[in-house]
């Protein structure tokens, strides 16, 4: 089975190059059409971290170069600019690579769930463009299945590894459901905005924004649909807030023990979760010792994220084993559906039967002249050839059906191959 994969990813190519190669989704159909002359089947994956072309080809010789030239043509980038960054896999290695990508083992953040959805998207585009048939269809279907298996049998996506989602996880450990909670943002950093988006996705209802420059607070508040509050009314706002995210450029602590104490007594000791992502820190670390107050600074969050990442890498080893095992099994099955060998086997099988029957017949009929023998030979061989010839195109057609693998297997059983 001549499967070939060529591409580059975040490990082999810098982001500038990946950006240039990236094909926007609505341009993928036309790119696929351009690949038709060089490949029997083709699929393109183009995300911000990878650009890959998976093909089934008639001839592997020079295949990498042909496809590389094709990429250069489609993206209008000189070949030499990206050729050193390319990797290519053939046969079982290509299958294993696709399985690894789908299982998120080849991702920048191992275990991130988006890649599977993206692959499904590119798969359906290729289906619409009819640039894939049986072979790549079964590779992809199996890749999705393996990804699902990896997800359910390992903890590869078990815990979050980004600082902002770790913060949200911690909030969930304190409050359970975050619906209807109030968050308070002091200062405006990129991280706070990111965390707020996570929090809003989890149902946080009210967001208060404070900044030394009120104008900035108002701008951010508008952007995230929150409410700007004056910087001076800090304590009153703290009393209203369940989650406080601070990221000001202040050189001294802006929230101290007495602020937290006052806030707690106003809110009748309902817990407050402080997230201090400022450097130098905004919140006095002592408040973590108070009952019903929880404080995490950027280092704490990073430590948790790093610990989770280590866990994931451990799980990734288990996942690699699953992928290797599955790709081997699948490859063996796929090879069996390769129509060429099957045809040849059928041919030799029938031919053997023919020879055997002739032998038996010759014995029964007694001595024949050479001419008669030739005639008999000619009759039987043209008969069997006709049978094989006519089934050849039909077999080829069958093999390209979505359930081709099963059908071919059935036929092989029929001929006891």
């Amino acid at each position, binding site marked *: 089975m001549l499967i070939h994969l060529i591409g580059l990813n975040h490990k082999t190519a810098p982001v500038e190059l990946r950006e240039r190669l990236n094909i926007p989704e609505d341009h993928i159909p036309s790119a696929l059409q351009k690949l038709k002359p060089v490949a029997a089947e083709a699929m393109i994956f183009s995300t911000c971290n990878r650009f890959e072309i998976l093909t089934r080809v008639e001839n592997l010789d020079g295949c990498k170069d042909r496809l590389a030239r094709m990429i250069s043509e489609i993206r209008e980038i000189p070949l030499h600019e990206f050729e050193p960054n390319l990797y290519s896999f053939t046969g079982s290695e290509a299958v294993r690579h696709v399985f690894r990508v789908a299982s998120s083992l080849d991702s920048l953040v191992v275990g991130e769930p988006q890649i599977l959805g993206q692959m499904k998207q590119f798969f359906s585009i290729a289906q619409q463009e009819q640039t894939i048939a049986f072979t790549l269809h079964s590779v992809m279907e199996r890749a999705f299945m393996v990804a699902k298996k990896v997800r359910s049998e390992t*903890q590869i996506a*078990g815990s979050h590894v980004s600082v902002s989602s770790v913060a949200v996880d*911690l909030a*969930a*450990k*304190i*409050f*359970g459901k975050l619906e209807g909670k109030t968050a308070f943002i002091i200062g405006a950093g990129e991280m706070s905005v990111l965390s707020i988006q996570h929090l809003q996705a989890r149902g946080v209802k009210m967001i208060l924004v404070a900044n030394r420059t009120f104008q900035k607070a108002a701008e951010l508040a508008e952007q995230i649909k929150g409410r700007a509050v004056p910087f001076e009314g800090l304590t009153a706002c703290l009393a209203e807030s369940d989650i406080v995210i601070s990221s000001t450029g202040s050189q001294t602590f802006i929230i101290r023990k007495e602020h937290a104490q006052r806030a707690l007594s106003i809110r*009748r*000791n*309902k*817990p407050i979760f402080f997230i201090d992502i400022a450097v130098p820190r905004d919140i006095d670390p002592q408040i*973590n*010792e108070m*009952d*019903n107050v*929880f404080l*995490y600074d950027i280092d*704490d969050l990073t*430590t*948790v994220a790093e*610990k989770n990442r280590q866990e994931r890498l451990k799980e990734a080893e288990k996942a690699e084993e699953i992928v290797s095992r599955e790709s081997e099994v699948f490859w063996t099955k796929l090879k069996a559906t390769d129509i060429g060998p099957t045809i040849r086997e059928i041919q030799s099988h029938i031919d053997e039967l023919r020879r055997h029957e002739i032998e038996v017949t010759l014995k029964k009929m007694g001595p024949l002249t050479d001419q008669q023998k030739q005639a008999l030979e000619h009759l039987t061989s043209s008969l069997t050839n006709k049978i094989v010839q006519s089934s050849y195109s039909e077999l080829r057609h069958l093999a390209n059906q979505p359930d081709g693998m099963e059908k071919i297997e059935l036929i092989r059983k029929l001929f006891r191959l």
Partner: protein
Amino acid sequence: MSHILDSLAIIFYGLSALYFGVRFFSKKDKTKTLAFLFLLLGFVTHTIDLLVFSFEHHRFPGSNLVEAFSALTCLTVLLFLGISRKEDMGAAAIVLLPLTILSIVLKLVVPVQEEKIEPIVAAGWIYVHIPLMILSVAALTISFFMAIMYLIQERQLKAKTTSTYLERLPSLQSCEELSYRSLSFGFFLLTFGILTGIIWSRYLRGVYWNWDYKEIWSLITWALYAVLLHGRILSAWRGRKAAYLAILGFVLILFTFAGVSLIFKVYHSF
């Protein structure tokens, strides 16, 4: 009949505990359904067992410590099942189920004492007093479990480390709320339980209050829970402080429930 049910309940609870254990240590969710299936089977068998006992002996299984222990764990499992519908209580199951199994084993091993039923005793109040007290202790046990889980979770959050095994606890807020709710429920039952005891005592002995050790300790426990509830409602006691008090309360109630009759001579059968 009773022996068969006892053994079945032990097997079901045992299997459930096993699956909870596997889930706890392997951190995989696959065994959760099985754990709950066997827990439910165990609970149903346990309940039927206690009902059969009640009919056979014409009394509620609470005439001695062993019987009461079994009734207590059965009711605690019931409350546990209720809470588990919303919260991940797997960690608590690891402790609760072995105790439940122990209670049934004790019931199997210790021979049933046929009590001479005093006519007045049989006359009603005891049927209210004992179940109320046992249900109250069950509710307070749940409150205790929630307080313990609160403290573990709180400690982990403060220390900024998570133990590999105790990752899946209910959120602090859930622990807090459930501890508070089961505490209020338990306190309510305890109050009524003590009141019915007083009325029963009046019928049985002609006095409302005997200054029996059991009664004194019940009163102390009741007072502590009263203070805790008062503090929660009026002074917004929450978090660590409330959890420590709930644990202290539980230690007291455990002592009143089981310890007093083992140490002192009391006229309560246990």
